[in-house]
């Protein structure tokens, strides 16, 4: 028995030792002998609210700093519905090519860029229909912010407050074809701490397996698979801390519900998968999953030509915010 105890102690010792060693992996620098040729990159996002801007660049080895990656001497042609809509000129300030043309829904846009060093890049997209928003509403309320707290003179703790606007946007989805959507906030004035949605439609396309690690798209994109041809009301929240700092500022919520092209949807989906928090994010860095690539629809190189068409909500909430701030001070 004594002998057995000795053996067991020995085994436990080795077991602990092995556990420590196994959990020890290491990394070291490596110089890769890979001679990869740079390729041309073409990026376009067509939007009826804007002129068409075109970015042409080239890839560079990861181990080098990106320097002069913009291709300035490309010959770019842009055609819409088969008609040339040039000229396309290079804007040295913006480092973009620009075409003095504003697309509209249904336009079939084709871009072609001929470069000396990287060959010809081309791609096409079709501007989707504008999102059919039927109505929208919002409701504001004050909630406790457990992330901020203040110590009172008597030693007690007071939690901060947040001003929450809950938007409900009802839109109708066309029965024909598959539509893709993106909702986003473009607030550029006033302190906006957070904008998010927990609407279940944003779970679209996420496998339950990935949902264990991340339960929605970071980029808030979805398709009409669950609502095809029907009206749907999506909810969306903006949150601001209630503080005197914001008092008197212009407080405007700008929310856009875009219909996006299929290519743009796939491109954004690939970004979500690669840089999101799904299973792949855990496995890929340690070589246990095939690296995810970013979707491209560019022939002859990489990049994306995409389009979107959005309905925009601009809502000034300064009055409600001011009232909420007042109520909060009074209650304290």
């Amino acid at each position, binding site marked *: 028995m004594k002998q057995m105890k000795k053996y067991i102690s020995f085994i436990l010792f080795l077991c602990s030792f092995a556990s420590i060693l196994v959990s020890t992996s290491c990394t070291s*620098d490596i110089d890769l002998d890979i001679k990869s040729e740079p*390729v041309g990159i073409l990026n376009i996002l067509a939007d009826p609210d804007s002129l068409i801007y075109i970015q042409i660049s080239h890839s560079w080895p*990861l181990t080098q700093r990106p320097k002069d990656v913009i291709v300035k001497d490309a010959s770019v042609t842009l055609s819409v519905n088969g008609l040339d809509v040039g000229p396309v000129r290079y804007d040295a300030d913006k480092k973009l090519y620009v075409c003095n043309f504003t697309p509209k829904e249904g336009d079939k846009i084709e871009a072609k860029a001929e470069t000396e060093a990287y060959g010809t890049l081309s791609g096409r997209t079709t501007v989707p229909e504008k999102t059919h928003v039927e109505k929208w509403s919002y409701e504001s309320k004050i909630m406790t912010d457990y992330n901020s707290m203040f110590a009172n003179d008597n030693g007690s703790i007071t939690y901060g407050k947040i001003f929450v606007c809950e938007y409900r946007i009802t839109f109708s989805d066309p029965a024909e074809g598959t539509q893709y959507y993106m909702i986003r906030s473009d607030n550029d004035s006033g302190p906006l701490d957070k904008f998010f949605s927990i609407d279940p439609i944003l779970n679209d*396309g996420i496998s339950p397996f990935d949902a*264990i690690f991340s339960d929605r798209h970071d980029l808030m994109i979805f398709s009409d698979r669950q609502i095809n041809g029907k009206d749907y009301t999506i909810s969306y929240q903006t949150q601001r801390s209630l503080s005197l700092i914001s008092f008197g500022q212009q407080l405007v919520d700008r929310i856009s519900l875009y219909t996006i092209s299929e290519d743009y949807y796939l491109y*954004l989906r690939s970004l979500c998968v690669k840089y999101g928090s799904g299973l792949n994010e855990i496995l890929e860095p340690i070589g246990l*999953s095939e690296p995810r690539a970013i979707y491209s629809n560019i022939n002859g190189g990489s990049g994306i030509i995409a389009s979107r068409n959005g309905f925009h909500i601009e809502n000034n909430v300064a009055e409600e915010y001011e009232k909420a701030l007042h109520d909060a001070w009074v209650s304290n």
Partner: protein
Amino acid sequence: MKQTQITGSLNRFSLALLLLCVPMLLSAARYQVRGSKAPVETMFKSIMKQAGCNYIYPANMLKGTFVTVNIDTSDLTSALNQLFEGTPFGWKKKGNNITITRRRIPSKTVISGFVRETGTEEPLIGAIVRDSVSKTVAATNNAGFFSMHLNPVPSTLTVSYPGFKSKAVRINPEQQKSVSINLTESFSDPGQDLQELVVTTDRNEIIAMQTADLGRLNLTQTDILNTPVIFGEADVIKTIQLQPGVSAGLEGLAGMYVHGGAHDENLYMLDNIPLYQINHFAGLFSAFNADAIKNVDFYKSTFPAKYNGRLSSVMDVHTKEGSIEKFNGSFKLGLTSGALFLDGPLPNKKTTYSISLRRSWFDLLTIPGLAIYNATRSDKENKSTANYSFTDANLRLTHRFNDRNSSSIMFYYGDDHLKWGTTNDYYYGEDRDRTTEKNISRLRWGNIVASVGHNTVLSETLFGEFRLAYTRFWSRLAHLADRKDYAKDELFISSTRNYIVRNGIDDIIARADFSWSPASAHRITFGASATEHFFMPEHNSADLTNINNDISSADTKTNVNAFEASAYIGDDWDISKALRLNFGANLSLFNVSHNSHFSADPRVSVRWQPLPSLSIKGGYSRMTQFVHQLTQSPLSLPTDQWIPIMDDMKPQHSDKISVGAYYQFSNYVVSAEAYMKWMRNVVDYRDFYYILPDDTPMSEKLTQGKGDSKGIDFMITRRSGRLTGHVSYSLMWARRRFDGINHGQWFPARFDNRHKINILLSYDINSKWSVNASWTGMSGNRITLMTQDYLILDPGNTYITAEPWETPIADLNEGVNNFRLPFYHRLDLSANLKTKRGLWTFSIYNAYCNMNVITVVKNRVGSGYYNELYGLKDSFKQFRLLPLIPSVSYTWFF
């Protein structure tokens, strides 16, 4: 008839004649002659001289006939019978005169029988039976059964089996139709000198030199136990990984990629029944408990007609039946698991049982370890939980009705359980407002195989095996995310999410297999099987519950049923002494979703043996695969789904041509096997499948393509003596092409290890100690490495910008498996110490601690702006894994 009296003299052509004539004692006459390949005429005359008889026979009748005899008897009749055994001569005695006659050679007769282990009565699979007269050789099948066509004259059967003493049994086929032969294990003889353990006939030598099979290996339990492995956990897969032409996959795992094949192209069978998921712990251990294994057949080049359903290899594991003599038991305690093995007879002495149980005990460390961690952390409201365990059990009951009939029940159960997560409680302020969060995930997977079978000797030439089986694989991943916020004990926010992801496959199988020997030159196998598959590639459910108990549920389930039937026939034909042909075909039908797929797969291999020590072989095999496993990772995850070919998909096929040469000298066999393999309709995920919605039909996420591989495997093997093992080298190429992957361009397979060297040596120091060493060196695996960056369209900005530090960058896709990892090499050592009641096994994995590179990762140093500002550069880093790992285990025999 001319009568001639011949005086005795030694034959000058005899190669090894030792003739001993001893004058008979006065009281009792004895006839003693002994000789090896000696002229029968000389032997006969010697006996006549001792007997003092006259004899008569035609001149030259006995010329050219040689015998090997060792006669020592006082009975003249017995002496002459032994002398003329196996010869075409008879004799008659009249008075003191002996007349030799030429006997009529009758047609051959059949004798069949079983070869079993002495004591336990376990069938010995692949035992070699040689007839001294006809020189016919037979091998026992999975039930230990053999059948031979012999001359109807008394002869001797010599039976040999690795690790067992060879045995010679005298038979008279004219009078007996069956024989039961028991062999004694060499090690069971105490005090035996080590030299006596040498078994001159090894199963794999027979396979290499005698059969027409290429790329075939037979492993015994000893082979498996003598292979040094990680954590000392003996594993048949890791033993096979050391074979040439077999890539191991990821470091430390039980992967198997044979001749450029994929992970799901190997057919794993447990007692003739397929097993779908063969891994514990993501492949760190295989599901095959070495304690339960009797032996293993592995095929990688040519395949018997019996097997089909996978493209690249077949591994058929045979489990122990249990001893009929006495109860045996062992208990093993290792670094990672404990195992119990019991076998013995039931009281009726006709039924045997074999039970093996194995359970990991990581959780015995992790549970108390985490409890201590949780108790000692400063924020005691937050707790982490994690544990993992696996269990497997093999049970086999065998009932022997008589020598010709036996039935068996086999059961296998494997279960893995992984749990991880956190529970957190946050308290706020005096009111003790609080938030409770719980995130718990559980992953459970396993296999069940249950079968009942009956073996019967239908006639002396026909053996049948009938089996009804059920095999099941299941996987279940469940995740609970629960959050509740309380204000003064009043619940004001509640959110509960439950996700469950399941997949599985259930098969019901009926099969009948026959072996038939219609003539001594033919060994025919034939049979048929029918399988009803019940696939459940996915069953995903999600329940979302809010504070109002509003439940949003989603439940998607895919069920696919398929019916598969197959029939096969094959003949192993000795055309001549030098030429042996093995040919046959496997016909299969697969019906799924009202689509039927039919395949006819021919198999042929031929062996030409111009010299006894040289065999040259060639073979062709076609294999068809109707099911495949989808995987997103080189890890073998239980969440990887098995699915049948569906919609417009076509069955996978492989055509393989192999040639080989085998040369035997002394205790060594040197072999070279070259192969070319073409694969069609192989399946993989297409590029960007992961951005398709989850409910996209599976067939739209997949693509079919082709692949090919070629290479040559060299090996020198020594299977007998104190030092055994092999040294092998493989040169191979493997690549694939799919329309939906890599822009339709060819790309190398992930485990396209161009060069692979394996050295496996075992040395018996004495009767107590033995040591083993294995060294592996190979070209690194291939990985997909994105070595360039580029500016992407910023999804966060309204308008695109152009400065590198203002625009997000991403990895540029440059091709699949475009980078080969550095050369891989590793030495493993182990030593076994036998004690009176047990066995110590000490092992060291990666003895010189060369942590091999398993991947290359990117080292991002910061944003593009800071790169510019400080001149910092992103770089690549090698990710190395698994240092030196010692382990020890003890097996207690009782």
